[in-house]
């Protein structure tokens, strides 16, 4: 479904230092696969997700989604993004819109659905993430966990083929992580293709098909969650896991 070939991405900091975020990064994600990406901060995990929907422009390489290289100039990136749902660490809900409007807006102006249908889909999704009773409040009146569940519903409303979670639980208070992970697990069990940057190893163990450990913009090791718990091979992986577990 997604084939990534030889991605390179370099950031330039304000004092003109170069930081290599992705170095010859290649991978393949199959339809319905749930992939968890772990790694120390600055290892390029988030950059990889953000390159997939071109929130960041790569220096070179290929990203082929459903047979189309989305890095080509003639590709309409807005069309590609409709198929790639993204959930952010800091939710990024639209503060001037109610919960329901957050979930209907892109359906109306991007998918061009009529109001009735958009509202119906939004309410079903809000029900699914367990927050339908808050449909008419503004995001500022919600807890972090509730906001993140709305953000998931907002991304799902576009009916994307793939969902990407960029540290979706990292900004949450500990008691709210569970409710968001539950929603993510439900999605995974329903067969959604998922890419999740997370340090929640419980999530990885329960629903992931594959875990990728990244460091220095490259894949150091990949395998099942079981493999990472039982016998990680690289020293770098062992050190990292010993620190987070």
């Amino acid at each position: 479904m997604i084939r990534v070939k030889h991605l390179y991405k370099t950031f330039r900091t304000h004092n003109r230092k170069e930081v290599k975020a992705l170095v010859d990064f290649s991978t393949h994600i199959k339809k319905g696969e749930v992939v968890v990406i772990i790694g120390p901060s600055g290892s390029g995990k988030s950059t990889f997700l953000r390159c997939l929907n071109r929130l960041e422009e790569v220096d070179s390489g290929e990203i082929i989604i459903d047979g189309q290289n989305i890095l080509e100039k003639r590709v309409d990136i807005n069309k590609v993004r409709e198929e790639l749902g993204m959930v952010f660490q800091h939710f990024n809900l639209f503060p001037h819109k109610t919960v329901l409007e957050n979930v209907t807006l892109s359906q109306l102006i991007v998918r061009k659905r009529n109001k009735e249908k958009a509202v119906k889909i939004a309410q079903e999704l809000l029900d699914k993430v367990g927050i339908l009773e808050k449909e008419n409040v503004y995001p500022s009146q919600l807890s972090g966990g509730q906001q993140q569940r709305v953000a998931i519903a907002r991304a799902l409303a576009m009916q994307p083929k793939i969902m990407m979670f960029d540290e979706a639980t990292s900004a949450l208070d500990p008691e709210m992580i569970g409710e968001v992970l539950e929603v993510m697990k439900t999605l995974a069990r329903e067969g959604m293709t998922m890419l999740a940057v997370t340090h929640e190893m419980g999530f990885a163990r329960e629903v992931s098909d594959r875990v990728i450990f990244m460091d220095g913009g490259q894949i150091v090791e990949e395998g099942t969650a079981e493999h990472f718990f039982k016998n990680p091979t690289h020293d770098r992986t062992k050190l990292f896991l010993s620190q987070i577990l």
Partner: protein
Amino acid sequence: MVFGKRSLITLAVLAVILGWVYYFLTVRGITYIWHWEQIPQLLFYHGTKTAAETTPSLHLGVLMIGFILTLKISAVAIIFAIVLGTIVGICRLSSEPITRALSITFVELIRNTPLLVQIYIIYFFVGSMLRLSAFTAGTAALAIFEGAYVGEIVRAGIQSIHKGQMEAARSLGMSYAKAMRHIILPQAFKRIIPPLAGQFISLIKDSSLVSVIALADLMFQGQQAVARTYSAFEIYFTVAALYLIMTSTLSMATQYIERRLAVSD
């Protein structure tokens, strides 16, 4: 001590000013005779406007006629200043170097030359080429001048919105224009209401400068009335009060809008 050091200084300054005014009006022998009775008829009068009118009725006086024209000029200029300012503000943040350079040049050129000069240029030079009326030329000059300031306010407003908002909107498939229109600008405008209100209050006051191109606004009518009646103090105080009515109404209106928009905070 009841008063602090600072309030004592304030009181002393006030006393000096009042003493000076008293000295000026009495000891120096300026005997100004106030003619406030002339003011009401400059606002409204009961009588006949033309010879054709047989029965007298209530008419607007010259100051009120000027007041209404100032309102019209200001309202039209505010609308165009918002449109122009939004375009300039967005262009200022464009990734296209030429668009960016053009908008910066526009802002710098307009902000760094006097409005009075611009009014003359637009009226006498551009206006005579394009056959603009004094109203069009004066309003355009105001809208362009204030539009440059509004552009900078809009730019600051857009930049103050967290970049995650744009990223979220784009990741949902919205184009840059849609994201701007539905996500960024509504939030930015809510945030820039206070500086915008200040700018539009300036605009109303600056509109008095269009009186130089014989546009019969409040200031122009005031000057004419002074020339006829010699009651400079009374008329200018009245003109100032009329401007104050417009500007303070705008202040109150924006405070009301701000409170209304605060529901999502």
